Each structure stands twice: as C-alpha cells, then as structure tokens.
C-alpha cells in the first residue's frame, strides 16, 4: 500500500507544485493520476521513489515512511517507466532490460535469460535484444521500457506518461498490452497521463488533478462519469462535448448504442443473468 499523507512540494525556486495532497493506493491497485500539464503529477509520482522529497507531509509504503529508506535501494525495488522511454542509449536492448537485476547483484547470465522472456511478455521479438535503443521505433522503445521496469519483479510500478510519445494506433496496442500484463502480474501501479480515455481504460481508480496537485475528483471511472463533481471535471472527461453521452436505439431487434452525433458505438448486451435473450 502507498499512502500520501498531506504531502506538499515547493521547489527551491519557489514554485509550489503540490499544495496538500492525500491519497491511499491499495496493493495490486492501478491508480491513474490525470490532469493538465503542470498539475504536479510527475512531482507526486517521483515522491514515491524519492526522486523528489516532499517539503511537507510524508509518503509511506506499507506503513513505512520512504524518507527513512535508502533511496538507491528503494528505487531498485520499484519499476519506473517514463515518457521518452529513458533507455540508456549506450546499452543494447537486452542490457537495458537487465539493468536493475544486475544493479541488485543478479548474475548477468541469469538476468539475461529472464530478460529474453520479458521481451516476449511485452510483445517484442527477442531478435531485437542485440539492438541499441536508437535502432528501435518509439513504440518498441516503450515496450523495452516496460520490460525493464518489470525485470526485477517489483511490487510497485510507476509510469509517467509512458505512451505519450507514440502514435494513437501504437498507443492503443500498448494500452491493451498493459491491461493484459496487469491481469497476469497484479502490480500496484501508479500511472500518470493527461489522456482521460487512457485513464479510464487503465485505472481501477482515477484521480483528477487541478494545478497545485488539488484533487478535483477521484473514484472509479464509472463513478466519475456518473457524477462529475463540477464543471472542471465535466469538461475534462468530455461530458459536455457529447462524446460520452450515449443513447440506445433499436435496430432490427438489436439494441445499438449510439453517441450524440448518431454514430454507432456498439451493441448493448442484456446484463448477464438478466432477462432471457430474444
């Protein structure tokens, strides 16, 4: 479990990135922090692995204040994926994936055989293992970034806009991969994005942030969609653009879900165990 307890961050130049933020994240839960640029998402994420130390309040993992933990060891126990993949350009794909296990003292050979498996887990051809990051596409680099974060089998995975720099098709692919991996591995994930659709897709719980790390609303995607707390949330989730207002039309005996523009969004199935099918 990760707990933010009234944390705040004021950078040395006087910028207050986070005013007063509290949140509990259960083990095996995927929480998405979503908000506009500069709302303090990265700052909050980095407090978990001590890349940023809070100016006020504390962050605790399983009840233990991270301020009392050795930052280097803490970071080796937490997977971290960032936007531009952050791969080391001078290391092959394989050596990038083995980074953390090797830092933790696992033998290179053992780490490598596990790394090859991981490449498959994230949907990469192991034949790419010998390449350097610059010889991969952006999407492939992100997959390597995910594989690297998983390599030491951490309980916690921090992801800072990991799919922000790839095109929409590749992004959708990576998101599905992420869902599949989470179903298998049940990590505690803190995921940062400014894409609300991505947040709703990947988050068990979504935390919507205003500038200053102020929570505008938090809850499951369903809760947020069902009852947006205010206009900020409503506009952020697109409720007022009509893209999320769907209605049902009956066509040839089937119930079709249609969006505000009249485009078909899907077919409505009766609830499981509900009324008998026609």
């Amino acid at each position, binding site marked *: 479990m990760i707990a933010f307890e009234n944390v705040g961050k004021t950078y040395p130049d006087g910028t207050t990135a986070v005013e007063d933020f509290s949140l509990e994240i259960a083990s095996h839960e995927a929480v998405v922090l979503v908000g506009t640029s500069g709302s303090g998402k990265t700052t909050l994420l980095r407090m978990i692995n001590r890349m940023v130390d809070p100016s006020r309040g504390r962050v605790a993992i399983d009840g233990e204040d991270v301020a009392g933990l050795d930052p280097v060891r803490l*970071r080796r126990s937490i997977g971290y994926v960032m936007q531009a993949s952050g791969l080391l350009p001078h290391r092959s794909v394989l050596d990038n994936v083995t980074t953390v296990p090797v830092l933790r003292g696992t033998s290179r050979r053992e780490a490598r055989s596990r790394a090859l498996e991981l490449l498959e887990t994230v949907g990469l051809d192991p034949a790419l293992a010998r390449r350097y990051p610059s010889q991969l596409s952006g999407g492939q680099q992100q997959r390597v970034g995910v594989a690297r974060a998983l390599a030491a089998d951490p309980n916690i995975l921090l992801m800072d806009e990991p799919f922000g720099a790839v095109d929409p098709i590749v992004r959708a692919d990576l998101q599905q991969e992420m869902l599949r991996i989470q179903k298998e591995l049940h990590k505690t994930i803190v995921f940062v994005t400014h894409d609300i659709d991505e947040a709703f897709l990947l988050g068990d719980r979504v935390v919507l942030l205003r500038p200053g790390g102020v929570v505008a609303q938090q809850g499951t995607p369903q809760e947020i969609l069902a009852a947006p707390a205010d206009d900020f949330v409503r506009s952020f989730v697109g409720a007022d653009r009509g893209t999320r207002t769907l209605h049902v039309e009956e066509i040839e005996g089937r119930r079709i879900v249609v969006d505000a523009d009249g485009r078909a969004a899907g077919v409505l199935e009766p609830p499981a165990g509900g009324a008998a099918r026609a």
Partner: protein
Amino acid sequence: MTWVLENLDLLGSRLLAHVLQAIPPILLAFVLSLPIAKLIAVRGWLRTSLTAGAGLLYAIPSLPLFIVLPLFLGTSIRSPLNIVVALTIYGLALMVPSASEALRAVSGDTLRAATAQGYAPLQRFWQVELPLAGPALVAGLRVLAVSTVSLVTVGGVLGVPSLGMLFIDGFQRGILEEILSGIVLTVALALLLDLLIVLGARVALPWARTPRRKGARA
C-alpha cells in the same frame, strides 16, 4: 634522402623522445580533466571561473613557461619533465572546457532515468554519464593529442631532445632533409595518434556509430 638514411638512428631516438614527452601529458590532461569537469558541472558557479581560468592558462606563452617551470620544479632546464608538466597544463586548459561541455550535453532525462532505475551517484557517473559523454570527449581528446604532439617541438629550442630539435638543428646547420624529416615525422606522429584514438573510440563506443533506424513501427 641520403641524410635520412645515414641518420636513421638519430631520427628514431628523437621520435622516441618525442613520443615519451607527448603521451604522458595527453593522458594526464585527459584523465585529470574528467573529475575537474564533473566538479564544474556539479557546482555551477565554478564553471565560469574555471573555464575562464583555463582559457587564461592557454594564453601563457609556452617558451617562458618552459623556462620558468624548472625554478618551481627544481629540475634542470633541459629536463623532459618540464615539458611534461607544461604540456599537462596546456592540455588541461584545452580539455577542461571541452570535457565540461561534453558532460553538460548528456541528456538530463537519460540521467534521471538512470537514477530512477537505482544507479548510485558514482555508479551513474562511471557507467552512464561518462560513456554517454564519450563521443564528445573523444573529439576533445583528438584536439588535445594533436596539439600536444606539436607543442612538444617547442622544447627543441631549449635543447630538450625531440623532433623539434631536428628543425632547430637543421636550420642552424642548413640541412634541408633534417628540417623536413622533423616536420614530416611530427605530422605523421600526430596523424597516427589521431587514428589510434578514432579506432579506440570505435571499439570502446560501438553504440555511437550505429545508424538510426527511422520510420520503424512497433
């Protein structure tokens, strides 16, 4: 040509002396420049003062320096040690700004990513920052090597044996072949060192020469 053939021994010993005076300052200046450059990068205010200081060092005329140094070092004026020390100073003047620029150019995002993976600070310096600065450091090293090889010749004026002595002696005695051999060997030595550095860099930094594959898809 006959002069050359008759004096191969002399050429060989001058060449060797030249190499022995050039290599230590190149290595010393290169190795010492790294921690100094790192210090400059960590302490921002040091940068302006030290890079300016380094520039000033380079402005010290070399001949007077060669003459003054023995007073400090307690060496004789003809000692090759003077040359080594003086050229290390010049080498630092050249290499410190170049190394500090090389370190500064390493992507902050990549370094932060390395920190996030759990590299300890020194580990990160040796295993990430330094290799990534490698190509730019090599560029600096090449200039350092060539400039040092050519500066060693100045010692010839003071009578410290080196290829430089060949042109001094050649001038005084009017032997054209001797002058030319001195010049040709100096240039050849500089080119050879440069080539060795380039080849060494290829082996040490294999990732730096892989062409980017653009337009690939996930």
